[in-house]
């Protein structure tokens, strides 16, 4: 796999009137590097190449990007998983405004996250120790709380592309259900009321791109289904 051919999305608002794809030749020394390693090698060639990264182990959610057409985290995606015929095309997450190169403006994504009130609400006085929760009750949070807010799911969702201001999107809804499912949370009714319009939840068309791309193996579609059930039960 020596001299991998990488095509990367470039756009610097100060100097470029339009985005373009730039070609790089990267000597991988035949190692099965992670895509993030390849980006670092490219940055040694051109220090101007901008991308986000932090933990480099798939837990901070900084380096979500589109690699050969599929969203994922660059730091835990080995070349052998994505490269086809020695070619790799890297683009920023789709559907969000580009600030520079691979860096997108995550504002809309975070706004939808904030909209679902992503924090525990409990109107009873806190005990002197922890609130008790059985292991079975706690198990209900598995597959929900692990979200790293990388936006791979929401930016692969056509419903989110069309209505990023009105449809909460898979990431936000997964977190919404994380609190609905928490036995310690007492704001269920208020949470459901906030989601009752035709867009917030019901714009999900079950396309399941979110499930296909989630780098943590989470299932937002299932969580959305559960919210729907709760909304319907609430309405009857």
């Amino acid at each position, binding site marked *: 796999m020596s001299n991998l051919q990488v095509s990367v999305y470039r756009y610097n608002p100060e100097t470029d009137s339009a985005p373009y794809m730039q070609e790089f030749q990267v000597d991988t020394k035949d190692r099965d590097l992670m895509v993030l390693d390849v980006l670092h090698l490219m940055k040694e060639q051109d220090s101007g190449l901008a991308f986000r990264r932090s933990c480099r182990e798939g*837990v*901070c959610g*900084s380096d979500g990007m589109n690699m050969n057409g599929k969203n994922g985290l660059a730091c835990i995606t080995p070349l052998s998983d994505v490269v086809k015929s020695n070619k790799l095309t890297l683009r920023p997450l789709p559907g969000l405004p580009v600030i520079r190169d691979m*860096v997108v403006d995550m504002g809309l994504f975070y706004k939808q996250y904030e909209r679902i009130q992503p924090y525990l609400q409990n109107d009873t006085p*806190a005990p002197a*120790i*922890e609130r008790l929760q059985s292991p079975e009750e*706690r198990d209900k949070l598995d597959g929900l709380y692990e979200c790293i807010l990388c936006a791979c799911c929401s930016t692969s969702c056509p419903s989110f592309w069309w209505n990023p201001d009105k449809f909460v999107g898979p990431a936000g809804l997964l977190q919404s259900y994380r609190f609905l499912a928490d036995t310690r*949370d007492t704001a269920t009714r208020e949470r459901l009321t906030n989601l009752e319009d035709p867009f917030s939840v019901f714009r999900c068309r079950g396309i399941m791109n979110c499930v296909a791309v989630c780098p943590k193996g989470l299932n937002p579609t299932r969580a959305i289904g559960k919210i729907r059930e709760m909304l319907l039960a609430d309405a009857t």
Partner: protein
Amino acid sequence: MSNLRSLTFDAIIIGGGGSGLRAALELAKSGKKTAVLSKVFPTRSHTVSAQGGITCAIASSDPDDDWRWHMYDTVKGGDYIADQDAAEYMCSEGPKAVFELEHMGLPFSRFDNGRIYQRPFGGQSKNFGEGGQAARTCAAADRTGHALLHTLYQNNLKNNTTFLNEWYAVDLVKNSNGDVVGCIAMCIETGEVVHVKSKATVLATGGAGRIYASTTNALINTGDGIGMALRAGFPMQDMEMWQFHPTGIYGAGTLVTEGCRGEGGYLINKDGERFMERYAPNAKDLAGRDVVARSMVMEILEGRGCGEKGDHVFLKLDHLGEEVLGKRLPGIVELSKTFAHVDPAKDPIPVVPTCHYMMGGIPTNIHGQAITQDESGNDHIVNGLFACGEAACVSVHGANRLGGNSLLDLVVFGRAAGMFIEGALNEGIEYLDASESDIESAMKRITRWNESEGGESIPQLKAELQDIMQTSFGVFREEKNMREGVKKLADLRNRIGNAHLPDKSNAFNTARVEALELDNLMEVAEATAIAALERNESRGAHSRYDFPDRDDVNWLKHSLYFPATKELKKRDVNFKPKTVDTFEPKVRTY
């Protein structure tokens, strides 16, 4: 007047990890004009990578557990240079801080009785070392840091904290009295540089593991707060004390939690021998991290390492079974498959001691107030400057931190700093404004990079720095090698001072951020190197071939590195806890 735009706050918190967010939460609730300034979106901070848990005597696994036992373990673990008043504060206040996290929503794992799950971790004991292994580390599976950081961010949203996300703090602004009155900061998205005025400046910038070539730390851990404080002339404490975590994945450096050994995993050499039984007959694989890391290196040096090059050992987990692995260590299974191509349910994970944690940092009292020392060795508070979390040296970790104590440190001392600052603001704080020349001197560094026209490349110099540290200041150290390292670093400092930033653009210029980070790595590396060279003894994580024994006569002390003269002085360790008897130094065995 300076043409910089200025932003004014009561308190500015630099860093959006665990300690910064905990301090911010306290201040947001108080209604003070506060902002968190973070170079990454807060949930991308390195706290997110903490795995095994938060150690605290909440008496869940053992109803008779006692914070004093935790304090004893902490002081012993730190090889007796942890400040006992600080360890006392952390261990006794800890339960309150942990229950608060649970009330905020942190999804802790649970025991059958509904209480928080606790697992055994290294260096833990009952009854002051007499009652056997304790299980004191509160966990959310093996994703405790992630759960903690997200919970704190969520609660800051709930309390309407102001965030300056993807802003980079460049340098501290000091007035003519030497008080810290804010900082120079850059908005990464636009490149705009502003003067942030503040009555309290909190450095919550985390660690600097990226001074080493091999580290468990995130790429962002470049010691920015340490660099800023050193450039402003403030001393650093115990910088020679770097923890090498026994189980970094061989080759990749990613962390494998000590919780693996807490759940029953153990280390083996190439003969399949559980070698920790020889080095620590009682605690075995759950001895202090410094002890385990040294034992691993000894195995490797004596030819019992694993693999073709014999340069690592194995962590065996397969006997735990898929159910325990899936329930208690799901993240480790994932990381191990991704970075070691090993399924731990079937095969052992190749591991090697890897730079993990900076015990040293900005000396502070338990309120987070930064401390400096005058010519005659008396402590003085630095007005306006605070530090908490890994950037600070309170010191609760002494010469070696116990597993699970860093998350506790973050929340206890983040909270303490927030409470103290709130009180101080209520009483009223007035400092002399910064003058034009004060601001200019804080601008010097970024101006230098912006005007650089040629010179060596940043990634190249960074790699050299990391190699020097790895070669000369690793698990075992000795004078000749360290002298060479110090010399090379001095040369490197000159070269970095003339290095080149080719990209001068404004919008999201990550090359500029990396240039500024390189200066900070340089500051941290040099402080580490000089302190390591001059501490002529072996204590905790600082282990010297040429001085193999602990020297309590000369070195039962903190080291204090002064950047202006590059001198190392000593500072007294606190042996006066308020409510318990002093833990007198003893021979440290596990």
